[in-house]
């Protein structure tokens, strides 16, 4: 399972540097308890199908979503409006699409269009029982953070 996570870590760092012009500090990945509450305000989800199944999710506080949107649009945003949804969706889309390249020797994946979930402490229902979810925490802009969660079920292949 862990070998499938590294491409997501590498791509996330590169995308934030190249697309958003900012450096990330990568934390230690950990397994997520599906029932454990969290305090993120917004999550954007991309489903993975094809030769493996799962999802990749980026979760953050509203303040960070607004900052990232501001970088991409050049304008200030005060709430989670359509443009913020668009921006965070595009960021996770680029991360998932680029991570496919690092996984192509293991399996071929098809990525879905992004879906956004918002609300304090919202719950994500993960697509299958088998896959363990790994969260990779990142620090950004010194005081902000976000989490990239990945679950891949290879149907028994390791």
């Amino acid at each position: 399972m862990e070998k499938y996570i590294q491409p997501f870590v590498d791509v996330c760092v590169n995308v934030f540097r190249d697309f958003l012009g900012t450096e990330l500090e990568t934390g230690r990945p950990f397994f997520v308890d599906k029932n454990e509450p969290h305090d993120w305000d917004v999550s954007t989800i991309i489903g993975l199908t094809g030769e493996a199944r799962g999802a990749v999710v980026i979760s953050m506080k509203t303040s960070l979503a607004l900052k990232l949107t501001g970088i991409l649009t050049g304008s200030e945003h005060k709430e989670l409006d359509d443009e913020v949804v668009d921006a965070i969706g595009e960021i996770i889309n680029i991360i998932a699409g680029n991570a496919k390249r690092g996984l192509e020797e293991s399996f071929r994946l098809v990525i879905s269009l992004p879906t956004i979930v918002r609300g304090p402490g919202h719950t994500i229902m993960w697509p299958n029982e088998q896959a363990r979810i790994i969260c990779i925490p990142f620090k950004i802009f010194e005081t902000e953070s976000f989490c990239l969660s990945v679950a891949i079920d290879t149907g028994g292949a390791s």
Partner: protein
Amino acid sequence: MSEKTVLVVDDSRIMRNIVKNTFSSMNIPCVFIEASNGREALEQLGKNVVHLVLLDWNMPELSGLDFLKKIRAMDKFKTLPVIMVTSEAARYNVIEALKNGATDYIIKPINEKNFREKLSKITL
């Protein structure tokens, strides 16, 4: 050089703006028209003389790849330059797009160097 019409197809409005801004930085005289999916892009091709299509892959209603297959089946669009501009970075995706008639392929995130390099190979 006479003004060219560039059709930018992406379901993300932010991304369409980034693509237009990056393209504009090359000082090629052009006007942009936009579409947010493949179906709208087909409508734009029916209404305008387009010289270049910058095409995302994953979009609702009609994907970039399905749009590409449809226009390559039409005689009048067989040679229209279409550059995929997409996050789909796997080699099998690039091969599939090129096999189905994409002129070239740019992986997001985009930059001016990518564009310059790819556009230098095609005649608008």
